[in-house]
């Protein structure tokens, strides 16, 4: 009990220094938390993807389409429950800075395959019935203030021209990980227009999404589909939705590695600051430690005092940082909503925060504690300032 009181008193002997150190820890842990969240957000896309859905695309690369005639063929493969198809539209709203995902999809099959996109039944019907209709995620709608019945125009980049759409519904995600900023419209609208303007590009789908009767048969069904189209003009690659998203991640791995490294660097920085504080604190108190030793306290006790002080400062800083992480993450998410449609601080990040601060506290205490332990009484008493 007395030891705890002593640690507490020691900690707040230099109020300014303790305060500054804590500030440092708060700032560093905030940065660490944000960086970690950037990484988990990136991987969040993969987590949100289902393992029981397959994606079929052209084997050359994503920019090559597949003929729409594959639809019936894929539907008849054993193990396939339902199929839908779509095309990445890549339209621009206002200008290139206002980026959001927009895709032409076959609506009925899509909404059946993606139960995580929740839509009111009347809006769902209205969307399915209107070929020029579109639905958009809750966040996207809030950002641009669209209302049901509004006409929104996208400028096509892959498919030239101005395309008018009428808003028919707002979807929301079933879980927090579901993206709520996509723009989805009828594949038929795209196709019928292309038939008139660019017949060469009509009747093609960018990708097929396949629902399985049994998720365990994913590998077998993928092989069956790819085998069916081998040596045709449009060979396919079929993989689970998870693998598909992981493939994207792998391409931008360099950035992820860099961010992960930076999150380590920020911990290193704070470790250095913390270690410095502890070294200075212990140096000033060498005389007191000598007195402790004279009174019969062992080196272990003194080391405990130093470690306790280090832990106290770090954990206090950690607590403040954890509390602040949520509002700061919200601000960050608002500023970077183009890059990260979903930005949620995960529980793991908070645990990592705590683990990092304990680690920093222990490392920072090592050198001063060792110095204090090996200190001889005469040396300590003789020492000045």
């Amino acid at each position, binding site marked *: 009990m007395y030891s705890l009181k002593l640690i507490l008193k020691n900690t707040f002997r*230099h109020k*300014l*220094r303790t305060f*500054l*150190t804590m*500030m*440092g820890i708060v*700032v*560093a842990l*905030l*940065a660490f938390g944000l960086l970690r969240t950037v990484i988990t957000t990136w991987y969040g896309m993969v987590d949100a993807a289902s393992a029981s859905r397959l994606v079929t695309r052209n*084997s*050359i*690369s*994503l*920019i*090559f389409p597949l003929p729409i005639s594959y639809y019936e063929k894929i539907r008849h493969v054993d193990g396939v429950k339902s199929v839908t198809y779509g095309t990445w539209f*890549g339209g*621009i709203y206002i200008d*290139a800075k206002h*980026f959001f995902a927009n895709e032409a999809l076959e609506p009925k099959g899509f909404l059946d395959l993606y139960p995580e996109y929740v839509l009111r039944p009347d809006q769902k019907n209205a969307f399915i019935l209107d070929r020029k209709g579109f639905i958009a995620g809750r966040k996207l709608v809030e950002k641009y203030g669209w209302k049901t019945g509004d006409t929104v125009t996208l*400028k*096509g*980049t*892959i498919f*030239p*021209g101005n395309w008018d759409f009428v808003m028919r519904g707002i979807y929301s995600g079933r879980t927090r990980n579901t993206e709520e900023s996509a723009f989805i419209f009828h594949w038929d609208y795209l196709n019928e227009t292309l038939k008139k303007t660019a017949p*060469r590009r009509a009747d093609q789908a960018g990708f097929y999404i396949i629902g399985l009767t049994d998720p365990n048969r994913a590998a077998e069904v993928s092989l069956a589909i790819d085998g069916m189209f081998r*040596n045709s*003009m449009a*060979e396919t690659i079929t993989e689970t939705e998870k693998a598909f998203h992981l*493939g*994207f991640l*792998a*391409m*931008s*791995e*360099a*950035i992820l590695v*860099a*961010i992960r490294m*930076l999150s380590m*660097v*920020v911990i*290193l*920085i*704070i470790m*250095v*600051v913390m*270690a*410095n*504080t502890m*070294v*200075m604190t212990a140096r*000033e108190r060498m005389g007191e430690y000598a007195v402790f030793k004279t009174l019969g306290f062992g080196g272990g006790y003194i080391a405990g005092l130093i470690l306790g002080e280090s832990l106290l400062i770090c954990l206090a800083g950690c607590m403040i940082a954890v509390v602040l992480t949520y509002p700061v993450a919200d601000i960050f998410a608002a*500023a*970077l909503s183009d*890059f990260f449609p979903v930005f949620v601080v995960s529980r793991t990040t908070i645990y990592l925060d705590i683990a990092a601060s304990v680690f920093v506290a222990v490392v920072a205490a090592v*050198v001063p504690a060792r110095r204090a332990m090996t200190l001889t009484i005469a040396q300590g008493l003789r020492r000045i*300032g």
Partner: protein
Amino acid sequence: MGIPYSYSLRNLRTRLLTTTLTAAGMALVVFVFASVLMLSEGLRQTLTATGSYDNVVLIRKSSVSEVQSGVERGQASLLEIQPEVASGPDGRPMLAKEVVVLISLPKRDSGKPSNVTIRGIGKGSLSLRPQVTLAQGRMPRPGSWEIVTGGSIARRFRGAGLGETLRFAMRDWRVVGIFDAGNTGFNSELWGDADQLMQAFNRPVYSSVIFRMRDPSEFQAFRDRIVSDPRLTVEPKREIRYYEEQSEMMSKFLNILGLSLSIIFSLGATIGAMITMYAAVATRTSEIGTLRALGFGRGSILTAFLLEALFLSLIGGLLGLFFASFMQLITVSTLNFQTFSELAFSFSLNSRIVVASLMFSLFMGFVGGFLPAVRAARMNIVEALRTG
């Protein structure tokens, strides 16, 4: 009385561990700061080196990149006879009709596929890009299933080395040469005969038309005429501008990330410096008193402590820059979100970054050292002497 310079300097040596720790903290921050700047600079250099001011790229209106674009054969022929197109030494127009698509290739080390740009080239393609030189082998013969690969691709992708074959679009393509495009985006591309690639990919249209301008200053007039020509649905852009637009998102991302990280990290390091300097002032109260008693004025004390903080941060800054300079050996290759294809660029250090990083570290030292120095300067002589 003057400023006790040697006092400031020697103090750093006396408390070696503290000095080292504080300087190390700053060094880390400067390292991150410099690295981010170097990365943006590397990206910028790659882009400016890729495009040439004299060249014009024509892509279909409203498409953002060559991959999305389509230029009909008829329109391409019409562009070929424009008066602004420069003529080469052989009298032919310096113009290339190219087709650009993405293919997915497995990486050599991991086998993971990544998107790579493949460019179908014409006769003029090579002469339009003086930065591209053949390093090994030869250029592909027109009408054959042969390709040449950029240096970065040849190293990192399976089957892209000299003499190897790549299979895509139901054909085997032999790599007959490797070109060196220096520090440009072309280094991350494969080149083959345009007509063969168009046939293989079943694409009857070109992606872009690129030509050298007879007189670069004619661009605006040329642009106005082309845009208003009802026979054409293309949009001309200067090549430099075109490549800049291709990675606007990437540079924006790097800048936001770099700036916010630098600010946050520097807060940490500044606090570290402040702690050190406050401690320095506190433990040296009697020394300060003695200095004052000897006749050094408040200003001298303030400057001395501020100098100490600046020295400290300078050490940190130099250390950070030293380690950051090794980053130049690293090449980053990542997916460009806008074009969906691989782009390789390296960290690049220049004098502007060196100056900026040192200024940044000195700034941290100044901010961290100012308040403690003020406290030192405001000490009362008698009280300061008595505490000792």
